[in-house]
């Protein structure tokens, strides 16, 4: 596709999203499946959440919980043979799931950006850093070569890459993991997105570098006013970075709450058990003993009836097999999929 074609006004017009009182992003009943030899694996199971402008929502869960697939489904980037079979994803009222690929592609460059765990595999190894940053600037922001180069230097400086101008000629393999992730972030913010999807952006990095990248992301968010969907398995990262959190288990969102409420008063037994399993929390207990969650998560092709956490739940009861897995509001803004939670809180 030639840059000229993309620069035409028509494209930009086609995806201009109307301003409204709607949340920036609404995900409703999103269901994504993967056919396997042993049956259909439901990776995202009727997932619903929303994201306001300038907000950071954490999507936390263990491997196979569906957090990454959910994140990719938003952009229609589900890896083969996965399919989105239902639900809706709206960005300021515009339905993304039915948007033609052409328009979706423009949207990815202008309204939504994404960064991944491993910047080495998302950067192209045969193009210089400069070429990779200037490309979207010329395509989506219609800059000339010279303008794009100056903007690229500014962006690299903004993500705190030392000797930014010289780095334009570097290739990804010449950079450290942290620097590569900074380049990815520079590319991601180059088109001033309203929404940044960050899929485990610091997982492959060392602790001190992770800390730098998280700080940078939050700083940029405040400056650029973008919303972030932060996918992570790390409850520490979530606690440090997010305004609200959705906890996923076996494809379902099982709890959603403000970060403080979630860590202080978890309303789903899975969230509570996950927090109990952290070594940081064991340190506060007298015997310093870790409290693991017994057993394994269920196979996605063979989900148990009702609540998928019931087989591992210490508070399980026969009625758990009939739980519809829809979210119930415990307190305003605090949702849980466990209907027995409220009664327990009252001491029954």
């Amino acid at each position, binding site marked *: 596709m030639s840059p000229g074609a993309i620069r035409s006004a028509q494209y930009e017009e086609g995806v201009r999203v109307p301003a409204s009182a709607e949340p920036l992003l609404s995900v409703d009943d999103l269901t994504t499946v993967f056919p396997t030899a042993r049956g259909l694996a439901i990776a995202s199971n009727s997932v619903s959440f929303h994201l306001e402008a300038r907000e950071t929502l954490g999507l936390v869960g263990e491997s196979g919980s569906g957090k990454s697939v959910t994140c990719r489904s938003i952009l229609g980037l589900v890896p083969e043979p996965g399919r989105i079979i239902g639900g809706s994803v709206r960005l300021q009222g515009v339905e993304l799931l039915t948007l033609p690929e052409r328009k979706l592609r423009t949207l990815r460059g202008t309204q939504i950006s994404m960064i991944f765990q491993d910047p080495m595999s998302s950067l192209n190894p045969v193009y210089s850093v400069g070429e990779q940053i200037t490309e979207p600037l010329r395509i989506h922001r219609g800059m000339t070569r010279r303008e794009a180069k100056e903007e690229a230097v500014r962006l690299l400086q903004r993500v705190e890459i030392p000797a930014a101008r010289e780095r334009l000629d570097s290739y990804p393999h010449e950079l450290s993991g942290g620097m590569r992730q900074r380049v990815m972030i520079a590319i991601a913010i180059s088109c001033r997105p309203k929404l940044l999807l960050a899929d485990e952006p610091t997982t492959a990095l*060392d602790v*001190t570098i992770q800390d730098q990248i998280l700080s940078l992301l939050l700083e940029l968010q405040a400056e650029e006013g973008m919303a972030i969907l932060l996918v992570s398995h790390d409850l520490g990262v979530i606690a440090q970075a997010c305004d609200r959190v959705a906890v996923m288990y076996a494809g379902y969102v099982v709890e959603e709450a403000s970060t403080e409420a979630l860590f202080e008063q978890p309303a789903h037994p899975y969230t509570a058990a996950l927090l109990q399993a952290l070594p940081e929390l064991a340190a506060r207990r007298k015997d310093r003993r870790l409290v693991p969650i017994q057993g394994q998560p269920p196979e996605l092709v063979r989900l148990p009836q009702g609540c998928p956490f019931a087989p591992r739940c210490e508070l399980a009861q026969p009625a758990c097999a009939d739980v519809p897995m829809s979210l119930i509001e415990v307190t305003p803004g605090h949702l849980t999929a466990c209907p027995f939670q409220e009664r327990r809180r009252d001491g029954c």
Partner: protein
Amino acid sequence: MGVNGGDPLLVVDDLHKAFAVRRSLLDRARLRPTRRAIAVDGVSLSVGRRETLGVVGESGSGKTTLARCLLRLVEPDAGSIRFDGTDVSTADRQGLQAIRRRIQMVFQDPYSSLNPRVKVGAAIAEPARVHGIVPDDAVDEHVLQLLELVGLSRSAAEQYPRQLSGGQRQRVAIARALSLNPEFLIADEPVSALDVSIQAQILNLLEDLVGSLNLTMIFIAHQLSVVRHISDRVAIMYLGRVVEIGRTEEIFECPQHPYTAGLLAAAPVPDPKKRSRAPAMQGDIPSPLNIPSGCRFRTRCPYAEPRCEVDDPSLQPVGRGHHAACHVLPFRSAD
């Protein structure tokens, strides 16, 4: 030096290991010299009997190379390793085999350390057979005991690694390591690939086994909270050196090296009320091909002084059984 007093079981003295970096054709044509990545650069430490020493460090700190040197899975360039009075560094093949029976390793990824075509039972039995520590007719019973010890059912013996979950595979790897009744366990990032809920299961298992079998352990990890939980003492490594070592509580409550302090501050705390927005430490980790002069941490250190550029600090006592390699911080906090 160990918490239990008496002779330490393992003593490492001034250990060095560097790896030659393969030169490209172009580099060879230009007659560029072979570059050397320094992995372990003068490490000395000891581990007391029945003690767990945690080793923490970021990538390039040399923690894994150190572990491999201890068993001579890689040959150290210089320095000595003594295990229970025997010199490991100069041991011949037979001597080495005897030592390797007493020191066993558990790795991060049990999927790549287990042969996918060998059933679990056979994998656990193999070391015992090779070293001939149980009679042939008792091997099956030995395997079943080990399975029970690590919390797996008897039926697991007939399964292949791929039929097990990550946590179960790590249990198999632990059973295999215990198959030779070792005294010393080297666990290299044993829970790093596991989810939090499973990680807690494996940590509890290791803790129980160390206690019930009177094991001594080196526990290597990058995750501070995990190391804090399981270790009696902790060594912090940076670019091939131990920069601080001491009892766990002291290291975590009262770090005396700026790198340790920065590492602790950088670790994300799972508590939204304790948020820090400014990064704890600036700069990138220098390349092991190009270690800074003087103190190797000075390029990222908030306390660096001019002399740090020339004077390479060695480990100095900063408290009881607590050592740090820094010219500045220990003397500041003493004020």
